[in-house]
């Protein structure tokens, strides 16, 4: 085993790690926003809306991310969706396309997290609120969501970690993330697997750190909740 290559190639890993983290971050942010929409759509009393959201969630969760990403990446441009290189970022269009694909995927999972968090709040809370004359929206905003958020946040942190790992798939369409950097280094150094092991270590350090941070935040929230 020979890990001497790291001293020469670490900048590629570093920028790859930056790309991975940024992709995951944007994916979680937009995934959360759309996840909220889909969650409420699924909880809606309007049958068609609820069915539509359910169908979306089931289809996304029932098909591989790789397939979803390739479809988005190759289909949107042929339908005339062309994203220019904004903000002076080379390949901005490609980044946007893979984020769209990741958001399509993660929003379905996040929608289920949010819906589950809301439904886990005791039904008695809703009844007590309604009996006090609250409107549905006041009840949701001030009674249900503040309690649901305690169920949602930990799962959301977990989803962030999942996205970091799953996002490795963007390397197949040429996005220079950790995985792509590892492949390039393999080619350059003729080392068969050492660059991959380094990539694995980087992924692990990122996810492990994040999960420790999550545990800490969760612990603090529990403390707050027990007063």
């Amino acid at each position, binding site marked *: 085993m020979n890990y001497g290559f790291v001293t020469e190639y670490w900048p590629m890993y570093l920028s790859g790690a930056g790309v991975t983290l940024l992709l995951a971050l944007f994916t979680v942010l937009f995934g959360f926003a759309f996840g909220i929409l889909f969650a409420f759509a699924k909880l809606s009393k309007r049958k068609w809306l609820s069915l539509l959201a359910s169908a979306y969630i089931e289809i996304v969760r029932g098909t591989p991310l790789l397939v979803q990403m390739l479809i988005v990446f190759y289909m949107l441009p042929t339908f005339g969706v062309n994203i220019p290189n904004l903000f002076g970022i080379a390949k901005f269009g490609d980044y946007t396309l893979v984020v769209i694909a990741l958001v399509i995927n993660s929003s379905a999972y996040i929608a289920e997290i949010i819906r589950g968090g809301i439904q886990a709040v005791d039904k008695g809370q809703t009844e007590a609120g309604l*009996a006090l*004359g609250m409107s549905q929206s006041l009840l949701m905003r001030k009674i249900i969501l503040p309690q649901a958020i305690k169920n949602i946040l930990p799962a959301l942190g977990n989803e962030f970690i999942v996205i970091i790992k799953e996002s490795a798939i963007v390397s197949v369409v040429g996005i220079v993330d950790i995985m792509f950097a590892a492949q390039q280094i393999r080619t350059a150094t003729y080392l068969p697997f050492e660059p991959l092991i380094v990539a694995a270590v980087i992924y692990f350090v990122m996810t492990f750190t994040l999960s420790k941070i999550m545990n800490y935040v969760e612990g603090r929230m529990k403390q707050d909740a027990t007063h």
Partner: protein
Amino acid sequence: MLHIKDVNKSFGKHHVLKDINFHVEQGEVVAIIGPSGSGKSTALRCLNGLEVHDSGTITLDGEVLTHDNAMVLQDIRMKMGMVFQNFHLFPHMTVLENITFSPIYVKNIDKEQATQQALELLARVGLSDKAQAYPSQLSGGQKQRVAIARALAMEPEVLLFDEPTSALDPEMVNEVLQVMQELAEQGMTMIVVTHEMGFAKEVANRIVFMADGEIVEVAAAKKLIEQPQTKRAQAFLANVLK
């Protein structure tokens, strides 16, 4: 002031309320008793629209309960407080916030006035020192007294109670019943589903005996407990009073 006419309710094929007819006058305390599964809770929950009745009319002060008009429904719910078996306090709010929330956000009363009123209510239920506590820090009996104060803060015309003492440890039952008795003496209109026959007999004006989704017997409280007329009421009372 509260009129219930020909109300029916089914859960699927299960006919749970059968032609319920019934009225409550202002200042009256009515106890609803009956075997488990007879439809007492369902009847109470239909009154403030937590369950949707299938047919019949429920009228409070001439206003007909409907699920088609959110404003009317909300208005009726504001006039009808409800106290649940399991309290259902809001765990993320202090006792004071639990009580002032709806007056402030639903009735648009200003915060100071709502706080003032809440403190008076807390004094009334004997919990002045708990204003800043969270529900998780209270005993069951204290929780239920807060729940009563919370319902009273909306200044309802009727208070509905669904087995308010059934989830309490025995030593806490009396503190809650006592608060309810004081309310009754102060003229509050109340409908109380209860298994506390002593309370029903002493505090209620009338008792409604339900069985199998029907109102089987209605009479003055003492009379119904001491001389039930129907076989089913006799059997039920013989069973619970022994």
